[in-house]
């Protein structure tokens, strides 16, 4: 079999598995109990590996906040000393099958969602979403941020757990692929717009919340939190995407990208046929729409694992399904449509299940092929939140960003060295 045929066969298998995966939200646990190999002195983060010294402002802010949340430090100074003494292990989420938006910090006692792929038996994890603005994932860590995180652990988490126990007993969990599929027909692209997905999720979880018989006050607070946070299901969508891309990962000869991510300093990718080898380049600064009082000068280079959605064939790649998202991330409706069309040039397939009504129900562009990126010079273009470059401030806007070409070129070169003989 020629190399071309081997690649073709491998890519077909990888993308088929990505599309056929069936991610269900089955449970929620504290990170230390859910994620294999998690250690008390460990913090998971978004993007490729990073050291404290090279970390950007928002990443540092989130690390500080997580250490205070865990009770390992009582203030910023103590937290910084702890990290500088090397007493904290920083590890990328992706290396343990997890994902987190923006800084993506996950600490031992933070609750995580457990996604189970019913088709291939793969598990993936994602942390909880705090809402927008001043939140830990954007590098804020004041009293308000920390008390919200504690409420999420002490009330939201047990409530969700009780409801998911009921959902699991009833029908094996919540089928989140079906929710994404429907949300794409309701104006979401499922990266920066989760309005429909969150509503659908609330419809799904409501009977189980009732069945779980949680205290009425807790029920009301949890319900209000979900209702008032359109991004509530972003992290579930991301963990679902992680399960889909894990199904496509580690397939010999495949040139399909299985991770696209950023940590605020570097952007990084994985390629299926090259395993867990990171390819990195400086993370670009997003351009977009800013909250009142902030400008482009405040923007940090892009960060977050949320581009796992585009890796799996939705999010920014499905912007043509979500014209309203441009009011959040900037650009025009025409741009949203053009971006989706452009991404067909660098993807292996059109998704079998995720379709776009405006494009005559064509499947979304799915499975970035590093060869096609090199062939065309087009790189994945995604939408994203924008963090302030200083630690402690939080989210200042949302926008659009392109992954650097160098990532794909380096990966291609590594592929030539690995398989080119």
């Amino acid at each position, binding site marked *: 079999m020629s190399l071309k045929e081997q690649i073709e066969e491998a890519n077909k298998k990888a993308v088929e598995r990505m599309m056929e995966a069936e991610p269900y939200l089955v449970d929620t646990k504290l990170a230390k109990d859910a994620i294999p190999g998690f250690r008390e002195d460990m913090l998971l983060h978004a993007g490729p590996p990073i050291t404290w010294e090279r970390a950007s402002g928002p990443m540092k802010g989130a690390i500080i906040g997580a250490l205070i949340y865990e009770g390992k430090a009582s203030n910023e100074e103590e937290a910084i000393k702890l990290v500088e003494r090397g007493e904290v292990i920083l590890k990328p989420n992706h290396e343990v099958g997890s994902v987190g938006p923006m800084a993506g910090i996950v600490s031992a006692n933070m609750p995580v969602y457990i996604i189970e792929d019913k088709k291939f038996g793969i598990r993936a994890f994602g942390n909880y979403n705090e809402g927008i603005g001043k939140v830990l994932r954007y590098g804020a860590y004041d009293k308000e941020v920390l008390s919200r995180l504690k409420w999420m652990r002490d009330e939201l988490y047990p409530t969700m757990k009780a409801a998911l126990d009921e959902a699991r007993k009833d029908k094996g969990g919540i089928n989140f692929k079906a929710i994404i599929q429907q949300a794409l027909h309701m104006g979401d692209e499922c990266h920066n717009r989760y309005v429909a997905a969150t509503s659908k999720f609330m419809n799904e979880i409501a009977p189980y919340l009732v069945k779980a018989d949680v205290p009425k006050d807790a029920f009301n607070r949890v319900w209000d939190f979900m209702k008032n946070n359109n991004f509530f299901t972003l992290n579930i969508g991301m963990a679902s995407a992680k399960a889909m891309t894990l199904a496509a990962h580690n397939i010999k000869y495949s040139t399909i990208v299985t991770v696209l991510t950023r940590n605020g300093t570097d952007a990084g990718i994985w390629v299926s046929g090259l395993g867990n080898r990171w390819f990195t380049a400086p993370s670009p600064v997003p351009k977009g729409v800013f909250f009142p009082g902030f400008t482009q000068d405040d923007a940090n280079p892009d960060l977050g694992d949320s581009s796992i959605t585009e890796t799996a064939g939705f999010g920014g790649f499905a912007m043509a399904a979500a014209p309203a998202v441009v009011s959040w991330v900037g650009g025009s409706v025409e741009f949203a449509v053009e971006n989706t069309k452009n991404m067909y040039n660098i993807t292996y397939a059109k998704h079998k299940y995720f379709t776009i009504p405006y494009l005559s129900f064509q499947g979304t562009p799915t499975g970035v092929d590093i*060869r096609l990126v090199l062939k065309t010079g087009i790189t994945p273009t995604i939408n994203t939140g924008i963090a302030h470059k200083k630690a402690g401030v939080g989210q200042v806007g949302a926008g659009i960003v392109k992954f650097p070409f160098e990532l794909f070129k380096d990966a291609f070169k590594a592929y030539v060295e690995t398989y*080119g003989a």
Partner: protein
Amino acid sequence: MPAKRLTASFFGSLIPFFRGSSFSAEHVFRTTVYLRKTGGDDLVLISSHRWRSPFTINVYIEALNEEIRPGEIFVIDQKQLVGERVEIDLSQANLYLQKIPPMDGASGLEKDEVIYLSKFFSLLATAWNAFYRSVALERICEIRNETLSKKSISKIVGAGNGFTPSGDDFVSGLLASLSFARSSKARWKNSEFAIDDELLKRTTWASSQYIKLANYGIYDELTLENAIAIYRGDMKRAEELLLELARRGHDSGLYIWLGLITGLSILKFGEPITLNYICNRC
């Protein structure tokens, strides 16, 4: 209605030789217009591509096909190209001279580097669905061990699809490399063979002109830059330029590069290294 006035950014060094001559717009595409000399075969291009050549007039315009109609007549005068609907001002434009820098001391890419580039190219070419199944590649592979001659080249000229058939693109690249080696006073062994009108009749007018010009040592800047990088042994640049050239046209750039590296590796190593690599994987 007065003609629309455009301003050229560059014009090639062959253009002044055509002053007073008239041309017809033989092929009109979005980014490039092919002008054919009235009563002759000479080729002049109007192009919005940023790469230049001795026979090209470069303009900044989104869509040339919205301004120029097929069959439109143009005359090149002292300072402008005058058409019926469009006039292109050359007075502000820079002259593009195809300059080949001194190559003294250049040792060229080493054999293992050419092999690496061959692997890089081979893998990249898998992204072009038709490349490995093309008639042109099949024929190129058939003649790869023959001595370069009019007979062997005639098997490739006109082979394949496209405005410039793939076989012609390969031959253009091959001839560009051979003429590059000649004009750069290469220490590498020279190689020549005749390209005559009979051979050129086997293909389209535009394609035959590319072959003829390449044989004279006249080709575009991107092809030249590729040749220089390979000849100087600048691996990083060679890789970058391969990517740029590969993106030209449907698959024209792939075949031009294949011709170019074939010529240069025959001259330096006495064997078509990249072709051997590619053909063994067809």
